[in-house]
């Protein structure tokens, strides 16, 4: 085993055990690993953003062919304007850049939500109820579920009269949904736990035993 891999496996095992030490109680070793995690995550994000976005989309393209790519400089200028918020005299420039940024993404969000979420979901809820079969029952269940959940989230009118029982049905649908999501999340987390325990046994303990016993 190469020394770098050996050191890496020990580092990974130490960090894994340090995080799990929290299961006993909060302790300095856990907090150390937590601090490393926070710093490394943010540092990784910076590296990734620079490597995948700023360098190829701005710097490289401007350096390679500035003529047709001149407009990219506006993105750079707007990006730098965001930092004007740290200079009180020109802090208003930061708000200008932020306004363009928010305006654009809000516009995209508006169209994506309406065109990508609302319309397809409404279309998919218009299900046939024309025959007596289990499929019709399931379709009816979906239609009732969608409408009752929407009524539960409709706050412009008090939930009295006919709205009250319908919104109650909506609550039961939401509870089933939350329960199902909860079950799914638990299974995903347990899968990660099994992965980490497998690493500790197969990736750390066993190779070390093999190394010590001279067969690795």
């Amino acid at each position, binding site marked *: 085993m190469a020394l770098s891999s050996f050191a890496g496996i020990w580092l990974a095992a130490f960090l894994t055990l340090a995080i799990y030490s929290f299961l006993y109680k909060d302790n300095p070793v856990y907090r150390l690993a937590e601090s490393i995690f926070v710093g490394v995550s943010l540092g990784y994000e910076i590296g990734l953003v620079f490597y995948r976005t700023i360098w190829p989309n701005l710097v490289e393209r401007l350096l390679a062919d500035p003529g047709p790519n001149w407009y990219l400089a506006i993105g750079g200028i707007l990006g730098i304007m965001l930092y004007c918020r740290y200079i009180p005299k020109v802090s208003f420039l930061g708000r200008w850049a932020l306004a363009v940024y928010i305006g654009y993404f809000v516009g995209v969000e508006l169209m994506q939500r309406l065109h990508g*979420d609302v319309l397809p979901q409404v279309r998919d809820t218009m299900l046939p109820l024309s025959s007596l079969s289990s499929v019709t029952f399931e379709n009816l269940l979906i239609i009732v579920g969608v409408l009752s959940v929407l009524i539960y989230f409709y706050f412009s009118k008090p939930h009295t009269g006919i709205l009250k029982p319908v919104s109650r049905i909506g609550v039961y649908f939401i509870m089933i949904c939350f329960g199902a999501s909860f079950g799914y999340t638990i299974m995903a987390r347990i899968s990660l736990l099994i992965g980490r325990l497998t690493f500790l046994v197969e990736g750390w303990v066993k190779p070390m035993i093999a190394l010590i016993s001279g067969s690795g």
Partner: protein
Amino acid sequence: MKRQVPIVLCFLTGAFVVVAFFIGHPLVVDLNEKLDELLIIVTAFALVLGVVSFAQHHTKKIQRKQKDWRNSIVSLTSLGLMAFLGLFESMLKSGAVIGDRPAFDWLFTYAFTPLQATMFSLLAFMIASAAFRAFRIKNVEAAVLMIAAVIVMLGRVPIGQYILPHSLEISEWIMNNPNLAAQRGILIGAALGAASMAIRVILGIERPYMGGAGD
């Protein structure tokens, strides 16, 4: 002036994107694509705002020797090291190497990945303790939630078939019918809410970009 300009800029960019969605003229499409490219770059720059805020917070902690200030040094050092290696590699297309791997990649594999996976797997225990409190059946709603969760969990593991026969089929049915209906209702409601908020921002009724300066 300082207050009106951002409102006008937000309106113009937001309205342009909405209008461009309906107009297929090459000029408008080209302009929209260019705007998209520009704002991806601005997004990347915006990340640094978060980094500055993070660095300010931890630097203050270290200066004032507040509780756990030593851990702040660790956080800032890990941040600096990882960011430096990432930037270095992007610019030079080669950088520091540990063994046969780039140092950035080495740290990603042996520090970032195990830390992230372990931290999230730790949540399995937290969720289990939260479940103990949540699943104490006090009313019909809690019972419905618990039954759905248990069936879905049993449906995901082979042993579930022995504990509850047909748990996989029941779990699939729950996921594809009542769960789907509720998810769809929530999605439509949330999308309509987000769309109405977007209209309020474009029209300048909500001004999140002002940071409290022009409300």
